[in-house]
């Protein structure tokens, strides 16, 4: 059990050494395989699953979840959680809606929504880093706080905005093209790409991995771990706010329950994609696969005719199976 590497000799390597090495460097592979299996499964059992409209619809769901999940992934890799993303999404959407209704230029309303989101993220990070309270707890608190603010400000009622013609700003955020595809997918893919490049190919990304892998060691080696964490909290909240505005651009109405429960789905997608709950490992490509998988499951279940009340159960099973498979794959690869 276990390999002890000593100079010059490699003892008892796993049978497929090359595979193990490759797997070690690509933790998103498990999610990819899962995605293929789910895709194949539904393609066979649900007749209209493979149509362009169906896939476009899944991508639309994945895009909004994915933008949030991308931010959370980045933060989780540096060793922290953000449970407030759902509330931030709601707050941002509400700000966007209220400013639009009040006659503000949409671009300004959008910027304000993003600034407030970033501010909430900064607060989350600052409190976590200064008080050394686990971010799970601090963001649990801010999640409830901002949801409460949302309810108090709106009195529980939705806010709607009906422009006479679809404004350009809304088209940029979430307009349709090529049939049922939406701009949100482009935002999503762009964000995944940019964040992944930063994570994997820059010094900052190295600092993120180090901060999550072992904060004290990173500190000793000169990494500004507090700054890294605060920046990542801002990114997480900012992206959640962006997702809220993108969603509003399509639906034109926001209720104070918007985004409720989103945080757990976003974290689940990241974990399915190979990001460790304990931090220090994962990447955005894995999150891409995880989000597509989660987006595909519910859609596929409906189209396959599964009983409606079984979705929650199925999604739960898939999350657990995915994590177990990923963990075992990782353990095997490290032997």
């Amino acid at each position, binding site marked *: 059990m276990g390999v002890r590497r000593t100079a010059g000799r490699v003892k008892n390597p796993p049978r497929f050494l090359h595979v193990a090495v490759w797997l070690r460097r690509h933790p998103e592979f498990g999610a990819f395989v899962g995605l293929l299996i789910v895709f194949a499964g539904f393609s066979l059992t649900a007749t209209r699953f493979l149509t362009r409209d169906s896939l476009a619809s899944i991508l639309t769901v994945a895009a909004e979840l994915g933008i949030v999940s991308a931010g959370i992934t980045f933060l989780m890799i540096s060793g922290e959680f953000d449970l407030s993303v759902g509330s931030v999404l709601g707050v941002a959407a509400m700000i966007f809606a209220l400013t639009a209704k009040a006659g503000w230029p949409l671009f300004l309303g959008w910027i304000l929504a993003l600034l407030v989101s970033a501010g909430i993220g900064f607060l989350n990070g600052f409190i976590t880093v200064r008080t050394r309270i686990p971010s799970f707890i601090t963001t649990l608190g801010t999640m409830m706080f901002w949801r409460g603010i949302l309810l108090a400000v709106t009195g529980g009622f939705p806010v709607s905005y009906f422009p006479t013609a679809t404004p350009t700003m809304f088209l940029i955020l979430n307009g349709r093209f090529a049939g049922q595809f939406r701009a949100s997918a482009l935002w999503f893919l762009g964000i995944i790409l940019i964040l992944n490049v930063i994570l994997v190919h820059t*010094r900052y990304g190295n600092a993120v991995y180090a901060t999550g892998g072992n904060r004290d060691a990173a500190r000793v080696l000169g990494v500004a771990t507090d700054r890294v964490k605060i920046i990542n909290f801002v990114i997480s909240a900012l992206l959640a706010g962006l997702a809220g505005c993108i969603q509003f651009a399509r639906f034109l109405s926001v209720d104070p329950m918007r985004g409720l429960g989103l945080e757990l789905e976003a974290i689940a997608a990241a974990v399915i994609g190979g990001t460790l709950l304990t931090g220090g490992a994962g990447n955005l490509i894995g999150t891409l696969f995880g989000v597509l998988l989660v987006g595909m499951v519910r859609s596929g279940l409906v189209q396959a005719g599964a009983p409606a009340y079984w979705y929650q159960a199925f999604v739960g099973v898939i999350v657990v199976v995915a994590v177990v498979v990923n963990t075992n794959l990782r353990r095997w690869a490290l032997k």
Partner: protein
Amino acid sequence: MNNHEPLVQMVNISKSFGTVQALKNVDFDVGRQEVMGLVGDNGAGKSTLIKILTGVFPPDTGEIYFEGKKVEIRSPKEARDLGIETVYQDLALIPLMSISRNFFLGREPVIRVGPFRFMDKRKMDVTVRQVLSEIGINVRSPEEPVAILSGGERQSVAIGRALHFGAKLLILDEPTSALSVRETHKVLDFILEAKDRGLSIIFITHNIYHVYSVADRFTILEHGRKVATLNKAEVSAEDIIEIIRLGYKEGKCRQ
């Protein structure tokens, strides 16, 4: 070839935390290309002394001289810039990250593409391969996670890293305590090699036999005071153990 001027000299260092006096009037120096064993029982003040040297906090009194010049070390970064590197037991490398990333953490080489800077992975790869082969560690790729390395290999990589980045003084905190016999010897060999390549080393440990085999001199601390600086020629390992165990006066008398 030992230069007679010490590399680092700490003069009359005192430090208190509230009512507890951690260090009192301690003089401590390390020569060039020298392995200095810093020993003493728990609470003697070893870690406080090192933290002052590495910039974690300043001394209450006393001065530090590095390469003959008076310096004030206000942060770990300043210590690193001077060429003082520390290898703590579990804090040297991050297991989930690759050897390559660990090696260059905080000092990654970059390629510029327009206004953006990306890590030069190819350069990192080539360098780490070379260093690993020099140390004698055989891995398929520097992209492998540090987790696949044994404890001794990790220590060696950390030492190799300090060497590569031109450290002048390397502080090793309990480098051999979790290692097997064979691994311990490899690490000790590497320490001697590092010394040959121009490094000075402060070796902090409770295992007198380990440090005895590689050190040139020993500094013994007791209750915040320095009680002895001894050349290897003057004492045996057992002597040092006795001094620590019984306290300086008694231990010395028993020699």
